[in-house]
């Protein structure tokens, strides 16, 4: 260790701190018998060090070494020793364990003292161990049900009770942060709790692609196929990231067919309706729709309140209904942002010892709220709606009652109710001096159409996206 530390000290004096900290300090080292092995976390860092610093490192080593200059090798991976100051995550959410996997031999020499695989680990061949990667905190019990997700939840329950049955695949789609992944894990956890021996594998689509690429490189595609076809339930998140990846689509197509034939359950999530996924093979898209396709919608106010109460309870924090209501009213886009806001409030309360109430929350979230308040004025809604439907704002405010105007007007009112804190009379007033009952009627019409008319549903979602992000 000594030689390398001396070398580092000298390097530190001549290389700008930021570069030193980025590239050299994180290198792990193993010195033995005249060799110094340096470990980089990935190929990129390795190449960078090799190109920019290795010759200088060699120069310094030759200056400071008495007698023979040590041989330096650069490798990918890490040394057996683990830093004792490493913070450990507590097991509350039980992140999946690092997979116990074979390590790919590094090109740079033997890897006999690499203990912990990092980066280039490979998960192929017959020895591929089954790891479910299920998050045990995502269950039906911890899922907050509301109007926006009750259909999806019911469908997921059905699948959990009858895996591999009629609803195969279960295709959950909707915007980001609405609970698709949570539901997917909930089904997986339910299957495992009924049958602890069940092989339920959860993974992100990226992982499937990466595994396949490695398998192809290592001529292990048959092991890859065998593994993915041997599971009882396969849960793949964010399937839209298969777009443009033809070979992955091809492999997945065959996996899909095999699982379907074998009566093994598949659950897929996506950010959009199957038919709308671009750069995806038609035959796959049509198969996605063979089972049950359900949408998860953004949570409405009551559900957002309930989600916050649940999260606070999990964090063992006292959150009054009034406080939860205050946050839920202000933050509307998705559950992740809602959670982020709550975490900030809890952290502030914890470190200042103050009680959580709306005034305290307003102070904690002032930066965040400034962003939101700005985005949701009635003016902004009217301009967005008019532009979207290619009409004029003055049409929205006029007395005209043709359908091409009333629909956008109703949409605007419904959005104003959902996205602003204005009272119904204020909204009516802002839309050409209308009565508050007209606003109420508009909200009902839009709500009804969202259920029955896909175009209106898409429009509504688009507006939510445009206005809240």
């Amino acid at each position, binding site marked *: 260790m000594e030689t390398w530390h001396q070398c580092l000290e000298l390097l530190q004096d001549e290389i700008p701190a930021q570069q030193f900290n980025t590239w050299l300090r994180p290198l792990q080292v193993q010195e033995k018998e005249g060799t110094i092995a340096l470990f980089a976390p990935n190929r990129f860092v390795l190449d960078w060090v090799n190109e920019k610093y290795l010759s200088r490192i060699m120069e310094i080593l030759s200056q400071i070494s008495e007698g023979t200059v040590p041989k330096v090798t650069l490798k990918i991976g890490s040394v057996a020793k683990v830093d004792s100051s490493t913070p450990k995550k507590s097991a509350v959410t039980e992140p999946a364990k690092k997979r116990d996997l074979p390590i790919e031999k590094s090109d740079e020499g033997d890897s006999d003292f690499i203990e912990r695989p990092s980066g280039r680990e490979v998960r192929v061949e017959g020895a591929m161990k089954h790891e479910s990667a299920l998050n045990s905190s995502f269950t039906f019990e911890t899922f907050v049900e509301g109007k926006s997700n009750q259909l999806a939840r019911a469908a997921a329950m059905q699948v959990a009770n009858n895996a591999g049955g009629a609803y195969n695949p279960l295709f959950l789609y909707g915007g980001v942060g609405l609970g698709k992944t949570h539901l997917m894990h909930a089904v997986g956890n339910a299957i495992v709790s009924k049958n602890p021996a069940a092989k339920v594998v959860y993974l992100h689509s990226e992982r499937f692609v990466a595994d396949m690429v490695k398998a192809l490189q290592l001529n292990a595609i048959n092991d890859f196929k065998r593994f993915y076809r041997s599971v009882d339930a396969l849960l793949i998140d964010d399937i839209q990231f298969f777009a443009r990846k033809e070979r992955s689509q091809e492999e997945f197509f065959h996996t899909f067919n095999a699982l379907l034939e074998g009566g093994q359950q598949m659950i897929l999530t996506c950010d959009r309706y199957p038919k709308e996924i671009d750069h995806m093979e038609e035959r796959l898209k049509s198969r996605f729709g063979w089972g049950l396709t359900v949408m998860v919608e953004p949570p409405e106010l009551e559900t957002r309140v309930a989600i916050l109460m649940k999260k606070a309870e999990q964090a063992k924090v006292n959150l009054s209904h009034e406080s939860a209501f205050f946050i839920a009213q202000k933050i509307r886009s998705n559950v992740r942002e809602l959670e982020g806001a709550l975490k900030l409030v809890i952290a502030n309360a914890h470190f200042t010892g103050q009680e959580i109430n709306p005034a305290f929350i307003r102070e904690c979230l002032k*930066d965040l709220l400034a962003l939101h308040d700005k985005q949701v004025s009635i003016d902004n809604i009217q301009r967005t709606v008019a532009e979207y439907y290619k009409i004029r704002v003055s049409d929205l405010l006029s007395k005209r009652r043709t359908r091409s105007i009333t629909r956008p007007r109703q949409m605007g009112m419904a959005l104003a109710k959902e996205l602003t804190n204005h009272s119904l009379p204020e909204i009516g007033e802002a839309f050409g001096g209308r009565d508050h009952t007209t606003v109420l009627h508009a909200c009902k019409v839009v709500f009804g159409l969202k259920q029955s008319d896909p175009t209106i549903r898409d429009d509504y979602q688009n507006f939510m996206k445009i206005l809240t992000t």
Partner: protein
Amino acid sequence: MTTQPPFQASQLTLPLYARSRCRLENYVLNPGSTLLDTVKGFLTAPSDTGLYLHGSVGTGKTHLLLAMAHRVGPASSIYLNVSELRDVPADSVLEGLEGKSLICLDDLQAIAGQEQWETALFHLYNRCQLSGARLLFGATEPPSRLGVALPDLLSRLNWGVVLKLDELGDEQKKRVMLRRADERGIALSNEVLQYLFSRSQRDMTTLVTVLDQLDQESLTEKRHVTIPFIKKIMKW
């Protein structure tokens, strides 16, 4: 895809930190700030994957990120300033980093709107969630103003605590200046410090740029940094 934001002035941070030793112990806070508690707490919070720090240039983001990486230890952490890496393949830069305990990614605004980077970062986030690694982000803008085109990434950046770093007060800025001067081997008297603060613009970027210039000139001219010397160099 949104258009790519113009390159920010954050490159300035590179020379500014060239000889600093960024540690939590020498991080200067405004009175009553719970920033450090929150950031330290992030390392032990049970379920958090990301923490996002934003603030204008010179508010101490880079210092904090480097200090946190140092605290966790070089073997278990990595600090990357992505503005230096925006032209290299994101996949290869971020590959395998989830094996670390803490990954600090600075100047995130530099890669916002770049499809490859956004996708790679999104995938890294997901991998970190599974491995238990933590991501500490630094950027000039909050997530929603960053210009992120991939909604999946945006919602994840917003998932953890998002903290704004405020401008320091004058007293705190003076402490930072004293420390930085000390690191350069310059002794700043109270009078000189007072003089600097009464003449210069008082944002940290300008102050440190002035200090750099004075450092350079005092070395060249072999003179101490005094009020007459500053007057001459800065033409105040």
